[in-house]
Every structure is written in C-alpha cells, then in structure tokens.
C-alpha cells in the first residue's frame, strides 16, 4: 500500500498558477483570477506612479550605498508590486510591520527618505516616528515582526477598534518558528492581520527548494485554518485586489489571511552580497521580462490611461525625489554620543547616569586635547513619559 495514494497531498504535484489579472505582456487576463476583478484605471495609475517613484528611490539608494554613503541597503528592485500593493491596501490608521527589505513600503506610506535611511546610514536603529506613520521599526530578526503584528491586531480587536495590521515577510522567513507561531496565534485569536509573504525565491543565496517542499507558501494557510492566496507578485493589480480584500476581511471581523506574492529579487541580497556565486545571470533575465512596472505601463497605455506626458510627469517626480535623497545623503551624519544613554529605560538608572557622565567627560577631554571647544553641553533627554503613546489608541 502506498502512502502517496492515501496522502492528502502529493508533494510532487505541480504548483497551481498564481492568481493574476494582468499578464507578463501587459494584457488583462481572467484565466486565473478567481472572482477578483481589475482595480479601476485611476487606482492602477496611482499604483503605477508609486511603483515608478519607489523604484527610482531604490535604484538611487543602491547607488549611494555603492558610493559608501550608507552602511548597507537591501534593495526591493523588482518587488515593487508586492510592496506598493500591500501599503496601498491599508487605511491610514492601520499598522505596517515591515522588514529590512521594505524601505519602499515606508516611502510609499509617507516616511521621509532621510528618516528611512537613518538606520542604513548608521545614525540610529530606527529613524522615523513609528506612531506618526503607524509603522513598526523595520525588523531584521526574521519573522519576529509577524508576532508583533498579530499582537497589535489582537489588541485592536480586544478594544473593538477597526485597526488592521499587515506584516511583510520573506520566503526564507517562513521557515522560522516565529512565522508558524504568528500564523497560528492569528488564526486562533482571529486577529485582524494580513500576512504578505514576498516570495522572491531566495533567502540570501538559498533558493526556495532548499527552504520548503510544499507547492506554494500559500498552501501553508491550510494548516492554520485561514485563507491563503498564491498571487503573481509582479502583477500589482492582482496583489492589490487580494491584499485589499484581505484587509477588508480582517477589518470586518473575518480574521487573518496569508497572501503569497511570487516575485524575484533582481538585485543582490544587499550591497555586500555576490549573487554570481549562487545564481545564473540568465535567471535574472527571465524575471526582467516579467517586470511589474513595464507590464502595468503597457496595460495602462493600452487602455489609454497613461499618456507620454503623464509618464514624463511621474518620472520627473521620481527624479526630484532621487535628487532630494542624494542631497540629504550628502549631508554629514550628525549624531549625539550622549544620546546613547537616553532611551534604554523609561525609569532613569543611576548607573547609566554615571556612564553618561563618564562619556561626557571623555568627550570634553578629547575636545580639549584637540583644541576644540567642548561639545555643546547636552542635557539628558527626558525619558519618554509614562503617558500612553500618541496613536496607540487609533
């Protein structure tokens, strides 16, 4: 008797086709769209604009990193459809839980370039106001942020708020225990949370088939009792349709959803990576032909929703942003060494005050030795008070 016959899943079964609304060549398709429908042209044009701007930003920052202006930068080149669709499906009061890779999602949500890049430039770990933007710090320890998203969503539910949380994850991160715990907690608590896995097919150098053996990441949803969608992650129309529906579902009490966007990491993992060691240039070319921006451009042109003039306007906007980004990355980094001690505890500690005084004295002495005026006396920043953080109850 063969177990394969009996088994509910044959691991070698081919994966289904990913859900899509616009194909690689820029044509609207319905062959694998479920009952999702194309967003209206205005929405698509908005997504197009955001993708173009985001890509320009991403390319600019990669270039600046190569020039040594940033310590590191994980590019999302090629993944714009996933990033922008995820953000676009959120209301302003919703929360985003991104990773290191998702800088363009932050940009799209309105975070200023210099605040996004503060961390990659080495100024501070997270450089934006998390409550103002309702964006958690970009997470590096993989999959950990998914649990935070579930917790926040659960708190929103307990308070009977309508806030939804959306978290971005990589394909590799789904192997971590925390990804499993997050999906399971979300399902059991029916938390208003959406998991968007950007399956860019690599975890640094490790390809997907060394990461998992199921057909799609979306299949994993079955094991948690939640809906899972396998989507063409380079089709922003499909990604947007699915993530928006998932966000709505979460908001209206329907619980969590897992969305997989099948995409590709066009750049190296970060500037310090060398992809030639683990993948052929030809593979990248295949995916270049599936470019998310190109195909939407073709489609929008074909329905008359994008003129050359509009495109030029968008490109100008993107160039302006790139120029502004360049400019602020050329400014010298300013850090205050004494700030090191300011945000460790809410409740001030004598030992830290001592250490702060020690460093202040050392700095003063160095300045004196160097014949410089002593550093501006910097009063200890008042530790954040115990009032509830603004926006916590949004």
């Amino acid at each position: 008797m063969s177990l394969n016959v009996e088994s509910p899943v044959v691991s070698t079964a081919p994966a289904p086709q990913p859900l899509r609304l616009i194909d690689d060549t820029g044509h609207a398709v319905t062959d694998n769209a479920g009952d999702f429908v194309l967003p209206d042209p205005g929405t698509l044009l908005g997504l197009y604009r955001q993708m173009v701007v985001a890509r320009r930003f991403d390319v600019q920052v990669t270039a600046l990193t190569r020039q040594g202006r940033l310590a590191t930068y994980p590019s999302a080149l090629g993944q714009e459809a996933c990033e922008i669709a995820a953000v676009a499906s959120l209301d302003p009061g919703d929360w985003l839980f991104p990773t290191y890779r998702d800088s363009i999602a932050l940009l799209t949500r309105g975070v200023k370039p210099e605040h996004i890049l503060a961390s990659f430039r080495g100024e501070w770990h997270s450089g934006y106001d998390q409550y103002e933007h309702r964006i958690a710090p970009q997470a590096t320890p993989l999959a950990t942020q998914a649990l935070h998203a579930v917790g926040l969503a659960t708190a929103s539910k307990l308070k009977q708020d309508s806030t939804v949380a959306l978290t971005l994850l990589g394909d590799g991160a789904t192997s971590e225990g925390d990804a499993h715990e997050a999906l399971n907690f979300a399902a059991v608590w029916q938390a208003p949370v959406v998991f968007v896995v950007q399956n860019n097919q690599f975890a640094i150098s490790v390809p997907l088939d060394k990461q998992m053996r199921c057909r799609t990441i979306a299949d994993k949803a079955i094991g948690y009792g939640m809906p899972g969608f396998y989507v063409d992650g380079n089709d922003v129309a499909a990604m947007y349709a699915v993530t928006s529906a998932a966000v709505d579902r979460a908001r209206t009490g329907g619980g969590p959803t897992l969305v997989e966007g099948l995409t590709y990491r066009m750049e190296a993992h970060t500037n310090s990576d060398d992809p030639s060691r683990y993948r052929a240039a030809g593979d990248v070319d295949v995916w270049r032909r599936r470019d998310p921006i190109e195909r939407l451009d073709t489609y929008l042109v074909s329905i008359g929703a994008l003129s050359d003039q509009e495109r030029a306007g968008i490109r100008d906007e993107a160039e302006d942003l790139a120029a502004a980004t360049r400019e602020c990355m050329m400014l010298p980094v300013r850090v205050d060494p004494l700030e090191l001690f300011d945000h460790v505890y809410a409740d001030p500690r004598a030992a830290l005050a001592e250490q702060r005084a020690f460093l202040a004295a050392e700095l003063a002495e160095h300045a004196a030795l160097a014949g410089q005026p002593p550093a501006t006396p910097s009063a200890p920043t008042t530790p954040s008070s115990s009032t509830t953080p603004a926006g916590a109850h949004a």
Partner: protein
Amino acid sequence: MTLQSTISPVVARPPAALTMAAALNAAIHDSMRDDPTVVLFGEDVGPLGGVFRVTDGLYAEFGETRVSDSPLAESGIVGTAIGMAIYGLRPVVEMQFDAFSYPAFEQIVSHLAKMRNRTRGRISLPIVIRIPYAGDIGGVEHHSDSSEAYWSATPGLTVVSPSNPADAYSMLREAIASDDPVIFMEPKSRYWMKEVLSLPVQTTPMNTAVVLREGTDVTLIAYGPTVKTALATAELATAEGLSIEVIDLRSLSPFDDATVGASLRKTSRAAVVHEAAQFGGYGAEVAARLTERNFFHLAAPILRITGFDIPYPSPKLEEYFLPTPDRILAALGTWEWS
C-alpha cells in the same frame, strides 16, 4: 466585552494570612481592576488559574477578553505581547517554568529589551513577564532552572524577584505599572510561604534593596529563594557570635549600589548567595561591582555561595546542590578573621 475602565474604589482588605501565590494573584487582580489596559495571557492561566494557581479566579472575574489561555508557544506569547503593548495595552504574561522561557529568548533579548532604544524612546513596552524560577520543590529536569543571569546581562530589561508575600504584591503592582519591560522572577519554593497582610500593601520601591536584618560582621546578600536561607544562616551564626546583616536585593537589575555598598562599608565583609551555578552567575556581578566600588573597605574577598557549575540536578540530589546555612557558615569560616 470592551476594555472600558471599571475602576472600583480601593478598599483595604482585612488582614489575612496570604501565601505568596495569593499575594501575586491579588496584585494582578487589583492592577486589572484599576487599569483596563492590563491584560493577562499565557499557558493555562485561564480557567485552570495557572499551574501554581497564581492566576486563579481572574478568568472568571475579568472574562475571556482580558484573561486568556494562549496557544502553547512562548515566543508567540512574548511576541504578541509586544504587539499589544505597541497598541497601548499592558500585558502580563507567564512562562510556565523558567526553562520554558528559553523559546522566547529572541523576542525578549532582540525586541522586548531593545524596542525603546531602537525607536529612540518612541515605543515603550510596559510588559511583565512572570517567570516561576529556581528549585527546591522536587521538580524533574527543566523545572528548576535559575535564569536570572541571562536577563540581568541584557540591557533594557528590569529584573526583580520578591522573597515574601508583601513584596510579591507590592513589586508586582509596581512592575505592571512600570513603562519598562520587567522580568518578574517568582521563587517557586516560596509560593506557599504565608504572611499576614492587609492589602493593598506598599513596600519600598521595587528598585531598592532592603536590609532585612542588621548585623555588624558580615553582609549576606540574597534574593528570591535564598533570602530564607540567608536569614536562617544569620540566626544560626548568632550562636557562634557572628553578627550577620542580611540584604534582600529585590531588584537584580538595576542593582542598588547605595544600600548594599553602605552595608558593606559597615561590615567590610560580604558574601552573595544564589541557587544558580556560580560560573557567570549573577553573583559574579555582585562581587565584581562591590569590589570595584569598595575595595579599600574590604577586609576579605567577597564570597559566592551558590549552586555548583553543573545543570540543576534531579530531586533526590538537589539537597546536595543548594546552598545551605551550614555551607554558608563554612564558607565564611574560610576567611581569615583578625
């Protein structure tokens, strides 16, 4: 049910003999009653009331919205607590036994401890992680660990441990009210210790050490489960004409240099007692910092009387592992007394 405020007037309860477990229970209860943002979850903390019954009755009183059994996953418990705290709740979570906090290590060290720092003070995580710790209850393997060295070596965490019911109540209330994440270490072997208390009781602030018994010859520093051992030692020592001052640290991080240092400068000799293994244990920090700051007041090296440098042993062997008054007195006897 929503998280509406249901603050009831604080009425002092009549004095009653309370176990530490009951005092902890009352502290959570009163915090939940007074602050609707306090929520409680973890493994078996709901209808069962926790394996040590510390959360007994809270599910019945506050309901599913504020008290819930979570899926069985400690990283999940701490990770979701972090998300809730970002949204303005004050979660109190339980790790069922010390060693079962280890799956949550990454969430505790990389996020809980660092979130305020990472976000330049923007995000506070007012979370209490209750950890029943240490041994002496005949527990099988993995049920008697003392993990305080891991937490206290982690900047960003506050680590405290009460040794008696009054402190248990007062310190847990303070921990829940704190805007810093607190690792609240409950000495399992003291859960059933009784004290007559009239709640609510407020003892000295959570971050201070307390001189429990005055003495002139030696400062004996203990916390959590070994406070009882230290007091017994002091009692025994009087027969030998040795006057021992006993300090209950209460707070492991921060360390109360002022109180402990003052005692040491008075006695000029000190020893620290804990259950955990000695090598790299919390006592190393106590000895190192006290020596740094008070070297010229010391008549003898600071001693550490601790568990051996081995994994916590099986029930029938724990009596040989745990520091006893005899062993402490013997150690003090190794000093040259002039």
